[in-house]
């Protein structure tokens, strides 16, 4: 009995930090409508800062908790800088830009942390005065866990007082419902936004700072926590602090007890609970219906049938690509193969995103599942490449069938967060299931069949498959299926009213997009001869988004141009130590300055010139 009590208390303790980070994310979203991807980075910074500050002070209760608080406040100040420099410029941009821009912040923070604290994991100090354990019926519970169990509800109570007993809190709650009206009543929204961001960042920093005695401090903390936090927020309901608390407790307990029952599949358990909650309450336990904010549809440009000029350009491009091997060296061919495969990957994302309005933050799941599907077939059953290349899109399409069923129940940022959570779950399975997937070591020896093993042959194989895939996707965009999808993107209500079953349309489109991403992934595995978990990591998902974004969401050629641009850029900066920093800055710069992408901006420039003439 006492064993279960202790296990339960451990679950509560681990919920505390999760709650702090999740409610910070929730509060920021409530007012600014921005899902702050960099929230995990604030959490990580909190941990590093607290450990550093505490190390400079004499050991003691006050210096420990003082360091934790100071770390949280410093993270809050960093949050203010991020808000003023980045977010303030994109409050009116489509949510895609906000998510990607905050991911740029993630990259920048990652490299700055690496530069300041180095690559090695750090062990934090034990909390003075709380470094032993309490005996509960023969079972031991760390004293520090008791402190955390108290901390969670204490912060919840303080936040309630802050939001219900101060004018600032009243203004924030008012702005959460209707920020425009709050402005029209004479309240400076900017100050509210900045102060809310400060509070949210502080909470994330605090969440990281209190973790230092419990887990090693590492550069992986940011992305690890953000996926869990997204799950908490999706379950608890976006914008609800109490919901975040309940969900954090649920997740904490699931982890604590899941380990006892199914140590291997706690993730699957997590997934099942999330699934049940979302089916019963699509807005989460305590979430409210999404408020319509801003006039987003006006920003969506029409996607036009390709005219003769576009067709000619595509034909010329194909011809050029077909002729390249005659005079190009091996290096260029390898680079071009990668560009083409990622272009297909990006085009498949564009299919659901540009066309269907579904911003997926976990598209790499399908790419990776395709890659692993092919690689596992080769490694475990000696399949030939041809069979593996059929299995790859099939596996990814099936994944789309499962993930999509849940995702189409949500829209907007909820969709984005859930898709990211699925991708992260897929990643963890691959990462942890060492016996089958090789975990971190990956799967090696994935070579093409004899006839395609030559660089030229593989290049032409890739070219034909990618060109065929892109053509098929384009064909579908201009079929009734594609039109129905766009109708749903622009007005879900009206498309429902004319008899389109939007969920089915979206579900089907996710399966299709997943299959094409999987095909690209399968080929990718053969092109490299190996596959590693990062094929489905968050950065890979963001790669796809950045490619679509670079090219422009509203253009069909965008993903192709974007893929070339991104790989060119990565190739150019990969020789620098801090290439993530550069990439992050470039991403932020693009989001802030060119919200139409490369192709979109060119089109606008041409249109502008035509109008002037």
């Amino acid at each position, binding site marked *: 009995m006492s064993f279960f009590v202790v296990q339960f208390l451990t679950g509560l303790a681990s919920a505390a930090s999760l709650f702090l980070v999740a409610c910070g994310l929730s509060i920021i979203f409530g007012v600014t409508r921005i899902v702050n991807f960099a929230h995990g980075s604030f959490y990580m910074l909190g941990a590093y800062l607290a450990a550093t500050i505490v190390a400079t002070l004499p050991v003691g209760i006050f210096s420990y908790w003082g360091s934790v608080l100071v770390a949280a406040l410093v993270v809050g100040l960093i949050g203010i800088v991020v808000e003023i420099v980045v977010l303030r410029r994109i409050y009116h941009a489509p949510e895609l830009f906000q998510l990607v821009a905050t991911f740029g912040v993630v990259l920048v923070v990652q490299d700055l942390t690496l530069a300041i604290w180095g690559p090695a994991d750090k062990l934090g100090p034990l909390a003075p005065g709380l470094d032993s354990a309490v005996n509960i019926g023969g079972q031991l519970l760390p004293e520090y866990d008791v402190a955390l169990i108290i901390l969670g509800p204490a912060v919840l109570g303080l936040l309630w007082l802050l939001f219900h007993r101060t004018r600032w809190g009243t203004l924030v*709650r008012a702005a959460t419902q209707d920020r425009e009206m709050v*402005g*029209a009543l004479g309240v400076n929204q900017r100050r509210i936004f900045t102060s809310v961001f400060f509070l949210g960042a502080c909470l994330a920093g605090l969440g990281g700072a209190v973790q230092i005695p419990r887990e090693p401090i590492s550069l992986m903390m940011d992305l690890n926590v953000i996926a869990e936090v997204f799950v908490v927020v999706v379950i608890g309901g976006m914008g609800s602090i109490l919901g975040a608390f309940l969900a954090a407790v649920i997740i904490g307990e699931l982890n604590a007890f899941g380990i006892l029952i199914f140590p291997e599949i706690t993730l699957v358990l997590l997934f099942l609970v999330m699934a049940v909650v979302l089916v019963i309450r699509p807005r989460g336990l305590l979430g409210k219906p999404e408020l319509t904010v801003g006039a987003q549809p006006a920003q969506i440009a029409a996607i036009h049938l390709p005219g003769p000029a576009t067709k000619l350009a595509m034909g010329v491009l194909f011809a050029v690509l077909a002729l390249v091997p005659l005079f190009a060296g091996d290096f260029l061919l390898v680079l071009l193969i990668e560009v083409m495969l990622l272009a297909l990957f990006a085009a498949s994302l564009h299919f659901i995103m540009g066309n269907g309005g579904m911003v997926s933050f976990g598209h790499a799941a399908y790419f990776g599942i395709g890659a692993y599907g092919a690689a596992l077939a080769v490694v475990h059953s000696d399949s030939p490449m041809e069979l593996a290349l059929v299995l790859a899109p099939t596996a990814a399409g099936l994944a789309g069938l499962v993930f999509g069923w849940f995702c189409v129940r949500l829209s907007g940022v909820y969709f984005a967060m859930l898709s990211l959570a699925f991708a992260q779950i897929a990643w963890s399975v691959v990462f942890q299931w060492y016996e089958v997937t090789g975990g971190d070591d990956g799967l090696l020896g994935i070579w093409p069949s004899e006839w395609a093993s030559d660089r030229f042959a593989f290049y032409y194989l890739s070219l034909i498959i990618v060109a065929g895939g892109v053509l098929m996707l384009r064909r579908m965009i201009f079929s009734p299926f594609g039109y129905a999808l766009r109708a749903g993107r622009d007005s879900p209500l009206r498309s429902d009213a004319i008899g389109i079953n939007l969920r089915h349309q979206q579900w089907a489109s996710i399966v299709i997009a997943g299959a094409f991403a999987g095909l690209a992934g399968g080929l990718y595995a053969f092109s490299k001869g190996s596959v590693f978990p990062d094929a489905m990591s968050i950065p890979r998902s963001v790669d796809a988004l950045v490619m679509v974004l670079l090219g422009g969401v509203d253009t069909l050629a965008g993903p192709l141009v974007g893929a070339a641009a991104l790989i060119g850029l990565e190739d150019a900066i990969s020789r620098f130590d801090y290439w993530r920093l550069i990439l992050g800055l470039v991403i932020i710069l693009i989001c802030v300055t060119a919200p139409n992408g490369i192709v979109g901006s060119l089109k606008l420039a041409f249109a502008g010139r035509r109008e002037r003439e």
Partner: protein
Amino acid sequence: MLEASGIDAFYGQAHILHGVGLSVGRGEVLALLGRNGAGKSTTMKSIIGLVRPAAGSVRLDGAELAGLPPHEIARAGIGYVPEERRVFTELTVMENLSVGLQPARDSTPTWTPERLFELFPNLAEMRDRQGGRMSGGEQQMLTIARTLMGNPRVILLDEPSEGLAPVIVDQMARTVQELKRDGLTVLLSEQNLHFASAVADRATIIEKGIIRYSGTMAALAADEEARAAYLTV
């Protein structure tokens, strides 16, 4: 006192207002009349800055306001009561009022919740009720009271009678008359000519984003032709 001239406004590509101009004198009630979709609400929003005018000027006692963010226009002394009321449904009556609170001004009477409860006795009985649990008429009163908490010099009332029961409309008319007696300047948009005649001194008529008529309420009452051309459905 409030002077708007040459306002052009767009929603995306759609050109909504074409050089709209109007002026309201101190202590005056001006009715902005027009059919559905004529541009009344857009005119109001252009004045408070929720729609940014592409061209034109909005002056309050000579100070240029066009192009400023809404909160600065509100602080300059323009109070905006939106058509859809936009009460904060999660907040109580008292909390709704506190959102509107702005520092006192020398030139206008200073409003306190207690003074507002005298003007709207219904609200006094529901100080702790959530905005979302009030009737349409009560919400309309709350939204006016909330705006008055900012001690505005001019108040913009966007269709205050819309969707209200006749007895509440009469009450609303009395409220506007009382505000006028207190010396407040009012710009009011209306489709309800009866309501406008009861409270307004002058009328300006807008049609398809263009000002078509300006005159006293009495002159409009006598001008059957103008009424038929611009107001009757």
